[in-house]
């Protein structure tokens, strides 16, 4: 299919009434949860995951994706207005966004981040449609060994690149992989870890796992957390939203650089997506700036670059997910899980066999970003008002949504019992420092990585050398080993530094 045909098909798909509706729903929900500091976008996507099973696959994905990038827009509003990041990736926006608010320039900050979000997304969407088809074609020649190595790299990156405790990160991944293989083993038909419960023969549903780790445990740990009522400084009038010419000039190059950094980070599997992209873009800006001392006290470049970066990363993350079937972070893992539930095997064949899925999704990103741009400017006062809702009223509502959502998947009360038990375990494990995102990634990739490993070993007649003899596989595994060594050295240096500091 040619590029033009693809785009045409994409517009046709994305502009259907149903997909437009789901897109609007997704970006609006994303915007709201992005603004509310109480709920993260992972929680929101987990909660809405069951709804997508009742919709066609493209519409469901359009909605889930809309929540993701919509939350990137909304997250910066809370950062700018009340110095509380709505999402992890907008934490860095606080550094210069909130000082701008204190200087009475909240309106300018809000409009700059909206424009930067739109710009970053646009760059990454273009990258997505340009890179995905050739990447998918190249991936068609990948063997099981290459897939195994690629997934191994993604899992190693997800487990080790977390803050602080790489060993617990690895344990989280391994535990997730175990959750993933519960049920009937596809190649031998043997039942594993089912403890005789027939409800587990098909494995634990992704909705149950996602809701336990991002819903139940979130609700429990958020209840009763001491909260300071956010004080909103100053009203945001439409007039104050007009950026000055100097602001626009100052944000142009940071936006371009931010979009570049974000796209690069977003493509890497396991790199953690938006928050790392935003922090890297901020660091880059500070380094290239002629006035680095202004960062932290309201520098325009300090909000436009990271904002462009986290949106670019949110869109670019779809490139490996849709072309290779390798999710880069927990959100992509949920999207991949949704695809699997719909019977679509993610990977390079999706582009050839279901072109309307890929192109429709890509064009819906464009439409969704336009919706956000249009929604954002006139509704800015409404979003700012949302910040004043006390999050405590949300918790019984979220709990109800978890219960009904889990029940609705198979009309099985058993799934609700599962989410209660697993949710309690999740809360305790996360309190101890286990990481939910690598765990979910492991859960989704578990059956895939086992299957590819077994197939690769079968094809090589039991010779493990196949993983180093194939150049693609060898490159991925070498990268994984390099990553482990780098993290281990880093952890060791940190320990010696800390030991010196203590004495």
């Amino acid at each position, binding site marked *: 299919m040619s590029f033009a045909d693809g785009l045409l098909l994409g517009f046709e798909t994305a502009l259907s009434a149903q997909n437009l509706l789901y897109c609007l729903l997704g970006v609006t929900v994303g915007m709201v949860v992005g603004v509310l500091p109480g709920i993260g976008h992972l929680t929101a996507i987990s909660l809405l995951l069951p*709804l997508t099973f*009742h919709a066609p696959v493209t519409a469901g994905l359009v909605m889930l994706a809309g929540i993701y990038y919509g939350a990137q827009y909304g997250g910066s509003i809370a950062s700018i207005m009340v110095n509380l990041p709505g999402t992890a990736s907008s934490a860095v926006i606080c550094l210069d966004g909130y000082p701008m608010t204190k200087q009475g320039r909240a309106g300018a900050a809000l409009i700059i981040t909206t424009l930067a979000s739109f710009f970053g997304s646009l760059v990454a969407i273009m990258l997505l449609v340009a890179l995905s088809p050739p990447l998918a074609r190249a991936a068609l020649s990948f063997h099981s060994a290459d897939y195994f190595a690629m997934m191994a790299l993604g899992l190693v990156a997800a487990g080790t690149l977390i803050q602080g*405790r790489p*060993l*617990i990160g*690895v*344990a989280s991944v*391994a*535990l997730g*992989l*175990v959750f993933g*293989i519960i049920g009937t*083993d596809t*190649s*031998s038909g*043997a039942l*594993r*870890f089912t403890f005789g419960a027939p409800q587990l023969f098909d494995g634990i549903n992704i909705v149950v796992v996602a809701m336990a780790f991002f819903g*139940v445990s979130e*609700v*429990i*740990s958020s*209840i*009763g957390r001491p909260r300071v009522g956010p004080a909103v400084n100053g009203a945001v009038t439409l007039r104050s939203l007009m950026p000055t010419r100097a602001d626009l000039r100052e944000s142009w190059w940071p936006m371009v650089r931010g979009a570049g950094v974000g796209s690069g980070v977003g493509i890497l599997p396991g790199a953690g997506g938006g928050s790392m992209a935003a922090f890297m873009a901020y660091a880059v800006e500070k380094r290239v700036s002629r006035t680095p001392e202004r960062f932290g006290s309201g520098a325009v470049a300090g909000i436009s670059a990271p904002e462009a970066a986290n949106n670019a990363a949110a869109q670019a993350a779809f490139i490996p997910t849709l072309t290779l079937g390798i999710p880069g972070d927990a959100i992509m893992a949920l999207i991949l899980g949704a695809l699997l539930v719909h019977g679509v095997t993610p990977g390079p064949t999706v582009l050839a066999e279901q072109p309307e899925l890929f192109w429709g999704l890509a064009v819906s990103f464009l439409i969704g970003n336009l919706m956000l741009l249009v929604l954002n400017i006139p509704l800015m006062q409404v979003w700012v008002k949302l910040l004043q809702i006390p999050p*405590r*009223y949300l*918790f*019984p*509502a979220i*709990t*109800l*949504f978890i*219960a*009904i959502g889990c*029940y*609705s998947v198979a*009309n099985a*009360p*058993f799934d*609700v019992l599962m*989410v*209660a038990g697993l*949710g*309690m375990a999740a*809360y*305790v*494990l996360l*309190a*101890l*420092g*286990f990481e939910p995102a690598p765990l979910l990634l492991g859960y989704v990739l578990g059956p895939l990585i*086992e299957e590819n*490993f*077994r197939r690769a*070993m*079968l094809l090589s*007649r*039991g*010779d493990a050398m196949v993983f180093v003899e194939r150049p693609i596989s060898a490159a991925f595994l070498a990268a994984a080993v390099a990553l482990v060594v780098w993290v281990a050295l880093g952890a060791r240096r940190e*320990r010696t530094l800390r030991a010196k500091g203590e004495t």
Partner: protein
Amino acid sequence: MTRAQGGFGRPQPRREDAMNALLRKDLLAGLAALALGAAVVWISLDYRLGTPARMGPGMFPLALGVVLSLSGLGAALFALRSVEPAPALRVRAMLAVTGALVLFALTVERLGFIPASVILIFVSGLAETPVQWRALALLSVILAPAAYALFVVFLGIPAPAFAWGAP
């Protein structure tokens, strides 16, 4: 933890340190991973391992169990130097939220969708102190019918609104 009281009004740092050592966050995390890993290894030994060329269902989980135990052991060993105390669990919130979910599972088919939802809202609301009775009543009146409309009427989940006395 409460501070040691006795001993002529003097705190007893030594015993307290020993107690805290066992309750450190990283150590508990490592031990949890070790225990889970050991359980996975134990269970997967029941499954056929197979040969490298034709792996049985036991090989992959066995490897996972080993990785899980080793990383847990490593984390526990490194944790001996850490000082971060174990986190305080919110037991009330944990029991209220999971209890609400369990009650929903038990009642949704026996009593119906609406009663189960109302029960869930009130029980999960017990997590907060003081309990916001009026807010919960308001939430029940609005949310239970709204959720019924969305899931049962709109999405077609087969669940009765009320099912008093159904088997």
